């Protein structure tokens, strides 16, 4: 099937080139049949890439080691679940996944907009196909997933043990979906700039895709954080690693965009800003892929020396120069239709929130790329590391959280004293009260930033709660519905707004978890013998007994720990470190089972108030003497046995070697068992981390809010909104009086 796959890659490339050319010609000449043909080329590309992807997956499932990529990233013992995920562990498979997902999203947006934005769509199609040509070329000519070998090996190298984690199935596809979805608003922004049709029409068609990109990227980032949290050496849930930052930057930029487009939709303002943010988000998404692929920065997650850096730099340069050029060319048409009337208005809050988000992107970009910048300026790479982020990101995050509470409460255009009193009194008083309680109980002592984050987080939660309370109350008053039904109907009829509020609440919860876990974490390194104990943050941790298991897949050495507090049993933790057999013959016939890839199994007891996290680092040096003796014994016996077996027919050869393998397995098992029978001190890392669970709970709340905002609004509500929307090009409606709204007006606005 490999030749079919290679043919499909080339066919896909031809289709993408044709699609781009036909769309451009159709757009310029106004010939509809070429535009339609270009669009159909996108559908064809999606079909071709789907078949190519199925062929690659089938090769992994069949363990077809004639495919180089299968031999390098899978084996017959790789579980089926991970065989399905193995394609994107390779560079080749990742590139194919990029093109496949891009073709699917492109087909979806072009199908949905086939009767809308007719002038912009051909150019957007050309841009999307341009991306497909770029990534398709890389897959076809630089890292072909269908490359084969004439003499397939009997067994593959297998998937790296670190990737044998359920997140492997979801985390990379989520990130790739986010990155590829970012291309959609980018393409429509370019189309709008080329055609000069810069009303909010292009935003309305691509907004949902921008939101989907934001949601997928966010889910991908959080899943990655959760995965890192349970791996030793990945720096906990967030390490400010370049690859982590690469995913965070477009997410922050798109967060800014999905807020600021509301100002353009409502007031016709910030057109230059919005189009620039979309172009920046798309460019940052490509930059993220570039950072993972090029190995240009030292990362615990990055690809090593790859040849893909130069093509990516060229693509990024084209996107940046082209984007700036288009914005400058269309600057006259991008003039705002209105101006900011007051700094105390929702527009001003959104704008400030945008500036904070962009500042965060700038800080992350600068510090991430500083080793390269410093090398270019001084000739020496200078690393600043995670501590450099905190003085900038923490205050910016605090301002952001405060603004996410103020935004939903403050009025458009201009605030009044009555508005301030009516909307802010309860959340502000509540947040101050919570702050005082924390101060009095000593919870925030010595950690001012954490205390401020808790206060601002409480403010956001109270503000959002107030909005739901008032909206539900107003709906009950209008429709006489029961409270639960009124709440459901309230959300159902204005999903974008209330979905957004839920996202704000989720972000507040998430950041409260981050503030607590990073400010009040307690950790201890301890070397313990069985029966010995140590203390960390008031918990007594006792090393109960060692454990060791030997299976065909791996050797595992670990410990059972008993955790208690105040004499009461809290939990029992099990942690271990597994060693997978190495293929390196220099390690010896026994040593290769003890010196292969290692994978730590974290002992974790997660709770609502704190997590107890532990990992063991079993020192195997006391076994080294036995391992060396085993290497010597079996090293001498093996060549003779192999020579004898080589002269026999295959079945007899296997039978003649079987006793030797049995003896070897017994020897390995015997050596491993000494970890239990003759225990020696082993080292543990013990961490008590407060409120970590709330990071994941907050992320789930954000995802629910994002999904609600993304879900299409009911037909009836859409019709109602269409009636109330201003006619494009018409003069803006006069400003409503900035006085306290009547109960009926307030109720209508809320529901």
């Amino acid at each position: 099937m490999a030749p079919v796959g290679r043919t499909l890659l080339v066919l896909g490339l031809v289709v993408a080139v044709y699609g781009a050319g036909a769309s451009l010609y159709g757009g310029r000449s106004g010939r509809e049949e070429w535009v339609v043909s270009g669009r159909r080329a996108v559908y064809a590309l999606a079909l071709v890439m789907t078949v190519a992807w199925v062929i690659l997956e089938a090769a992994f499932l069949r363990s077809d080691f004639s495919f180089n990529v299968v031999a390098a990233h899978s084996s017959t013992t790789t579980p089926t679940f991970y065989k399905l995920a193995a394609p994107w562990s390779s560079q080749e498979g990742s590139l194919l996944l990029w093109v496949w997902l891009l073709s699917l999203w492109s087909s979806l947006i072009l199908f949905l907009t086939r009767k809308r934005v007719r002038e912009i769509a051909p150019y957007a199609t050309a841009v999307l196909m341009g991306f497909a040509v770029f990534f398709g070329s890389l897959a076809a000519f630089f890292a072909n997933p269908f490359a084969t070998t004439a003499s397939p090996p009997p067994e593959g190298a297998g998937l790296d043990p670190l990737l044998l984690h359920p997140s492997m199935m979801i985390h990379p596809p989520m990130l790739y979906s986010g990155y590829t979805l970012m291309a959609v608003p980018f393409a429509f922004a370019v189309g709008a700039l080329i055609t000069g049709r810069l009303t909010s029409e292009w935003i309305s068609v691509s907004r949902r895709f921008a939101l989907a990109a934001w949601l997928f990227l966010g889910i991908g980032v959080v899943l990655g954080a959760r995965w890192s949290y349970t791996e030793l050496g990945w720096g906990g849930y967030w390490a400010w690693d370049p690859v982590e930052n690469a995913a965070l930057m477009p997410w922050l930029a798109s967060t800014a965009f999905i807020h600021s487009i509301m100002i353009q939709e409502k007031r016709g303002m910030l057109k230059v800003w919005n189009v620039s943010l979309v172009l920046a988000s798309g460019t940052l998404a490509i930059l993220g892929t570039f950072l993972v692929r090029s190995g240009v920065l030292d990362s615990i997650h990055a690809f090593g020396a790859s040849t893909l850096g130069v093509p990516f730099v060229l693509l990024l340069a084209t996107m940046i120069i082209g984007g700036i050029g288009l914005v400058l060319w269309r600057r006259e048409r991008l003039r705002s239709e209105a101006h900011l009337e007051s700094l105390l208005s929702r527009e001003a809050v959104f704008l400030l929130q945008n500036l904070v988000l962009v500042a965060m992107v700038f800080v992350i970009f600068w510090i991430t790329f500083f080793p390269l910048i410093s090398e270019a300026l001084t000739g020496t790479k200078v690393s600043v590391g995670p501590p450099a982020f905190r003085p900038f990101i923490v205050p910016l995050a605090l301002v952001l959280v405060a603004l996410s509470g103020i935004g939903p409460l403050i009025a458009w255009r201009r605030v009044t004293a009555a508005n301030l009193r009516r909307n802010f009194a309860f959340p502000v008083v509540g947040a101050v009260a919570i702050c005082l309680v924390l101060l009095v109980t000593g919870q925030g002592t010595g950690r001012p930033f954490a205390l401020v984050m808790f206060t601002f987080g409480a403010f956001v939660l109270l503000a959002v709660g107030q909005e739901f309370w008032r909206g539900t109350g107003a709906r009950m008053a209008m429709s006489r519905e029961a409270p639960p039904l009124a709440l459901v109907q309230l959300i159902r009829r204005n999903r974008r707004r209330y979905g957004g509020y839920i996202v704000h609440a989720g972000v507040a919860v998430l950041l409260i978890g981050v503030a607590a876990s990073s400010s009040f974490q307690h950790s201890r390194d301890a070397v313990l013998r069985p029966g010995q104990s140590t203390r960390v943050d008031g918990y007594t941790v006792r090393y109960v007994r060692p454990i060791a298991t030997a299976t065909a897949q791996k050797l595992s050495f670990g410990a059972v720990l008993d955790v208690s507090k105040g004499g009461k049993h809290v939990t029992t933790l099990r942690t271990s470190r597994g060693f997978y057999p190495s293929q390196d013959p220099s390690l010896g016939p026994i040593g290769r089972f003890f010196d292969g890839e290692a994978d730590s199994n974290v002992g974790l007891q997660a709770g609502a108030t704190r997590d107890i996290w532990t990992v063991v680092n079993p020192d195997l040096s006391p076994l080294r003497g036995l391992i060396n003796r085993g290497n010597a014994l079996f090293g001498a016996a093996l060549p003779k046995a192999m020579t004898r077996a080589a002269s026999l027919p295959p079945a007899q050869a296997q039978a003649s070697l079987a006793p030797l393998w049995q003896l070897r397995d017994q020897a390995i098992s015997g050596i491993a068992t000494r970890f239990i029978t003759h225990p020696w001190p082993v080292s543990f890392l013990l961490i008590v981390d407060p409120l970590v669970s709330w990071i994941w709970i907050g992320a789930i709340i954000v995802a629910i809010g994002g999904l609600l905002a993304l879900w299409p609004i009911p037909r009836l509500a859409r019709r109602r909104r269409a009636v109330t929307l201003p006619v494009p090009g018409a003069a803006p409606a006069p400003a409503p009086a900035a006085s306290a709204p009547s109960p009926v007006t307030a109720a209508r606005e809320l529901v």
Partner: protein
Amino acid sequence: MDPSRKRAIRLVAALTAALLLASALVYTSFSAGRDELTAGQLLTRARPGQSYILAGTVLTGSVRHVGDALMFRVRDPKLRVSVPVRYTGIVPDPFRAGRGVLVTVHEPSTGTQFVGEQDSLTTKCPSKYQATSASY
């Protein structure tokens, strides 16, 4: 106040804030940064007491445990030189010979072995490297 004047004042305020942030960022980066050196650069530039980030690959056959300490040599990716490191602390799962590592080290006043700062060792994720030919 004239609306255009008001807008100009806001723009100046925003640009000033941006300039202050950028200046603070540049200053922090240069003042708090540590040189990231290869083995060859470390051997020529290291001064006792000063810490550096050593980047390179773990030399094959150099890894051994001595008590709690992990001893290994970090090889220069371009030159045929390596430096010995004595490290204590968390050893990341992917750490092994041939892997790319970053470790913060300082040269002790006595001895030739560089001392790795506790828990400063990071290893590049091997799974994400461009796969070389599999060994069978």
